[in-house]
């Protein structure tokens, strides 16, 4: 049970923080884990013993000395004075310097037998596993690769073998093949026959998922032959799984060999033809000759412990491979020691991002920025000050978010734009402390100024980073709700939509009756255009758009003051995306929540956001009213980003995008992170990190040296701010940007 098909078939996906920077950090680290080292050491010891056992063995395993190696005890009621001839029974010696593991009742040396047994047991285990692995590769990989009828037949065969209980079949087989006991090859083959099916199923599932991976398709497209595709392209990717199933099968085979030997089917060294010494045979002899009742533990305990120890070694190694295949298993929780080292207050608790003890230090530093932008718009509802988030601790920490200030105002839509890995999701989720370790909030402050809409829920200013679990729980969803990108995975697949509504309502609105909760859920679904009958449905029964709508309905059910929308429409088709955006804006107008809208699609953001903040490499780089940012960007990066979206009208002309690649957070360039891709980079940009600062009194801020000091601002970055006509959204574009409204017609 150390490997299981489901963990193996799932492609490793980074969890709630889809930061590809961290995903690519997955390098082969197999040998470093203490588990793997322990496993390797154990296996190595047994391997060495198996090879040199016969030379270091003090005696031959069959050597017996009935005179000196057992104690002779007079049978009571015999001997002198009883009238019966003296009769003695043998009593084995416990461990001593002459016999390190004592002797058996047959006056044999236990240590020598253990040493001799190691070889046969290990040999059978490895041989059986090798045969079984070959069989499972043959069956599993060809079933998975060829599919269709081949797959049907081969899968049926392995399913049938999987369903037949292995050991009983083994017992019957071994019993009917009387010569099996003396031929360890035969034993290994018989064990392999009963052991291959499970690995075969695992390999088939994995091959099936690999076969549809693009690189296999690509090899096929380039004209590669079948055999080469399997051997050169597929098999190397299957190595970890083959290794895992090989170890698992070895464990099973050793176990099975010991078991049938214990049953006396493994061939005894004393029978004819003689079998080999093995651990199971030793256990059988001990058990059959009253070693338990006699208390002669040294006779049967060593072989048993050997099985357990070898098994543990194999299992530990397997654990390492499992963690390699499925990195989620490895990303261990925050250990106390690591937490202490990093100075983290909160105990590692799920659903509560740990916060470093000395946070809130940078707040005073960033105070200036806040006051500057405090003048415009309605009162703030969520204030983020100087927030810093790391993944990992100490030396290995990746600074995903650095010193970010953000103010979300009541009833406004704040757009957060940036490419993957820019830290936009991390920033938003850290603010409500939803990130898992190894994410750590190392600095900053998040203030939530709560004025519950319905009067229920906590009010007043809440320090999110200092809040305890109960406060957070009360704030979450009721006041701040979240919609994630992948609606597919955001709904619990095995619970109906209605039940998920109900669970949430029961917690936050405990006074509501069951009927009231049901009615409320139905009404919320109707609000987003879903038939309330759908409360009975499960996630898989809804289309992608419907699932996302259901999530939005759920997120709005408690009339939150803030909604965090993390790429809510990215996975959807354009039409559905547009419909959902319309609904969101309509609902925002009706319900008055503030929204933090995260997306990589700046062109979309311009249409719906009041204000836009642009992130790059973990820092906020520019913040401005949406129209101003799009029509008159001040930051070279923003300027480049805007020109990455081909227009829908007008002359088609060549556009150049931004040269270079997005930065690697683990190896950021010195100075401004954008400088290697920036056409206007100054000398200063290569040395000093620019900080976000207001731009000569306007409502916009930018982190760029071009706008500081005496630098000449390029014309592209100095266009006049557009004139804001209405409160929000609609803008009179200056100059040549005015284009006739697009006409849809026949």
């Amino acid at each position: 049970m150390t490997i299981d098909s489901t963990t193996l078939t799932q492609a490793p996906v980074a969890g709630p923080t889809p930061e590809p920077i961290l995903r690519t950090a997955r390098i082969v680290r197999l040998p470093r884990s203490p588990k793997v080292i322990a496993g390797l050491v154990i296996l190595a010891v047994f391997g060495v013993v198996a090879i040199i056992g016969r030379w270091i063995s003090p005696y031959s395993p069959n050597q017996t000395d009935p005179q000196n190696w057992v104690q002779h005890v007079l049978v009571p009621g015999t001997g002198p004075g009883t009238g019966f001839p003296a009769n003695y029974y043998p009593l084995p010696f416990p461990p001593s310097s002459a016999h390190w593991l004592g002797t058996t009742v047959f006056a044999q040396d236990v240590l020598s037998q253990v040493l001799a047994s190691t070889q046969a047991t290990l040999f059978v285990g490895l041989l059986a596993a090798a045969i079984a692995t070959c069989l499972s590769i043959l069956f599993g990989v060809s079933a998975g690769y060829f599919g269709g009828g081949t797959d049907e037949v081969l899968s049926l065969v392995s399913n049938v073998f999987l369903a037949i209980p292995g050991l009983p079949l083994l017992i019957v087989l071994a019993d009917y093949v009387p010569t099996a006991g003396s031929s360890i090859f035969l034993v290994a083959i018989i064990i392999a026959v009963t052991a291959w099916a499970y690995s075969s199923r695992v390999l088939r599932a994995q091959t099936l998922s690999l076969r549809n991976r693009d690189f296999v398709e690509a090899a096929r497209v380039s004209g590669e032959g079948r055999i080469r595709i399997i051997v050169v392209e597929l098999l190397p990717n299957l190595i970890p799984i083959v290794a895992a199933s090989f170890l698992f099968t070895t464990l099973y085979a050793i176990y099975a060999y010991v078991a049938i030997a214990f049953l006396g089917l493994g061939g005894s060294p004393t029978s004819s033809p003689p079998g080999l010494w093995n651990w199971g045979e030793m256990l059988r002899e001990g058990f059959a000759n009253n070693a338990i009742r006699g208390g002669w533990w040294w006779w049967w305990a060593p072989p048993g412990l050997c099985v357990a120890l070898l098994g543990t070694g194999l299992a530990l190694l397997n654990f390492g491979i499992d963690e390699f295949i499925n990195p989620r298993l490895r990303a261990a929780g925050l250990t106390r020691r690591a937490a202490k080292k990093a100075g983290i207050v909160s105990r590692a608790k799920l659903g509560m991002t740990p916060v470093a003890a000395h946070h809130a230090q940078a707040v005073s530093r960033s105070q200036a920025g806040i006051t500057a932008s405090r003048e415009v718009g309605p009162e703030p509802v969520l204030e983020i000050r100087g927030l810093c988030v790391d993944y990992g601790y100490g030396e290995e920490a990746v600074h995903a978010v650095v010193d970010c200030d953000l103010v979300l105002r009541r009833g406004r839509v704040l757009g957060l734009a940036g490419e993957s890995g820019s830290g936009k999701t991390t920033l938003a989720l850290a603010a409500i402390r939803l990130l898992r370790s190894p994410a750590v909030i190392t600095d900053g402050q998040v203030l939530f100024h709560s004025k519950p809409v319905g009067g229920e829920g906590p009010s007043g200013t809440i320090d999110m980073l200092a809040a305890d679990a109960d406060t957070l729980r009360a704030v979450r969803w009721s006041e701040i709700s979240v919609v994630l990108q992948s609606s597919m995975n955001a709904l619990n697949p095995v619970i109906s939509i209605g039940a998920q509504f109900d669970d949430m309502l029961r917690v936050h609105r405990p006074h509501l009756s069951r009927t009231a909760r049901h009615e409320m859920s139905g009404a919320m679904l109707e609000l987003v255009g879903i038939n309330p009958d759908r409360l009975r449905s499960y996630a898989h029964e809804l289309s992608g758009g419907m699932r996302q709508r259901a999530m939005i309905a759920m997120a709005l059910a408690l009339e939150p003051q803030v909604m965090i929308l993390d790429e809510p429409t990215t996975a959807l088709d354009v039409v559905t995306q547009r419909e959902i955006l319309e609904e969101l804006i309509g609902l925002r107008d009706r319900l008055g929540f503030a929204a933090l809208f995260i997306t990589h699609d700046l062109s979309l953001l311009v249409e719906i956001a009041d204000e836009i903040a642009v992130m790059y490499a973990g820092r906020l780089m520019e913040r401005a009213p949406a129209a101003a940012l799009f029509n008159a960007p001040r930051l070279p990066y923003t300027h480049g980003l805007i020109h990455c979206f081909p227009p829908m009208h007008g002359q088609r002309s060549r556009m150049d995008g931004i040269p270079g690649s997005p930065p690697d957070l683990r190896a950021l360039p010195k100075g401004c992170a954008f400088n290697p891709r920036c056409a206007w980079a100054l000398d200063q940009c290569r040395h000093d990190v620019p900080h976000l600062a207001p731009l000569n009194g306007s409502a916009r801020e930018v982190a760029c040296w071009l706008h500081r000091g005496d630098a000449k601002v390029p014309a592209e970055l100095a266009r006049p701010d557009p004139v804001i006509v209405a409160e929000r959204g609609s803008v009179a574009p200056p100059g040549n940007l005015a284009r006739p409204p697009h006409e849809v017609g026949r």
Partner: protein
Amino acid sequence: MSANVPVLEGRDLTKYFWVKQGRGPLARRVPVHAVDRVSVRLDAGKVTALVGESGAGKTTVARLLARIIKPDKGDVLLAGRPAPSGRPRSYAAQVQMVFQDPFASLNPVHQVRHHLVRPLQIHHMANGNVDAAVADLLRRVALKPPGNFTGKFPHELSGGQRQRVAIARALAVRPRVLIADEPVSMLDVSIRLGVLNLLADLRDKEQLALLYVTHDIASARYLADTIVVMYAGQLVETAPSASLTDKPAHPYTQLLLSAAPDPDRAQPPHLEGRGAPPSLSAPPSGCRFHPRCPFAMDICKRQVPPSIALDTNHIAACWLHVDPAERQANENGQVLTAGQPLDNESKKR
């Protein structure tokens, strides 16, 4: 070669899939009408974009043209001649493909060099000097200097670099046709244009015939000479790209355009034809768009619309563009036999 013969052409391609429903040990299979009588032509030195929502059958058409899968009906013609059955290397040498996900299309256990060397070896393209050929390929996709890339594993490259390697691999055999299936949708916004421009350069310099599959109509307009719009497995409109985006003739194309993000838009768009694409295991009769179409007529429910040429090279499959009289005649002809099916149809709803 005559300009009238397309390099690669798909005629009336039709494909069904058997899709597993449910999961775990308990699953069954149902047929899905993925692609229905789709015809596409690719010309040398031109980019044809195939646009549609997910599930519209774009990728299936691409894979049919690349002959990764076989059509259930219809033909693939290479330079006017039926493509050989199976997928011989001679076909691979002329038609190549670039996949959507650069994280998946390169084998994680092999270096960049392996990915480029294999096609060179298979098709004997290297002329003895493999390393020079590899370096040349990397240079063609602007991965310079090549020496920095040959020894790298895919996970050491950024998304854009990977996609360039994938394109280089496709170019290795000096194909005449390149089929690019959503080549930029998985890439970061800032590097998408770079890859699109690379494709445009290949079209211009090497006279490649390119099929650009995408869901992003703005990028199709940017790159393609011709845009083909698909809906629910069928073609709905084909036109030169400017003509299609400026004067869309099919209600679905209009819907698609009005939904696309457009920062220059003064007013929020008005969507005509909300809703979701139909299930392809039981597609609607007649025009597959009719349940959503704001202009749907009776005939749309019953008869598959004909392809109407509105302009040079501008073709739409829509009854709205059929002369009313002709439409009536068609309808009358159909009513005699189709009365019964219509009733069934209405009962189903």
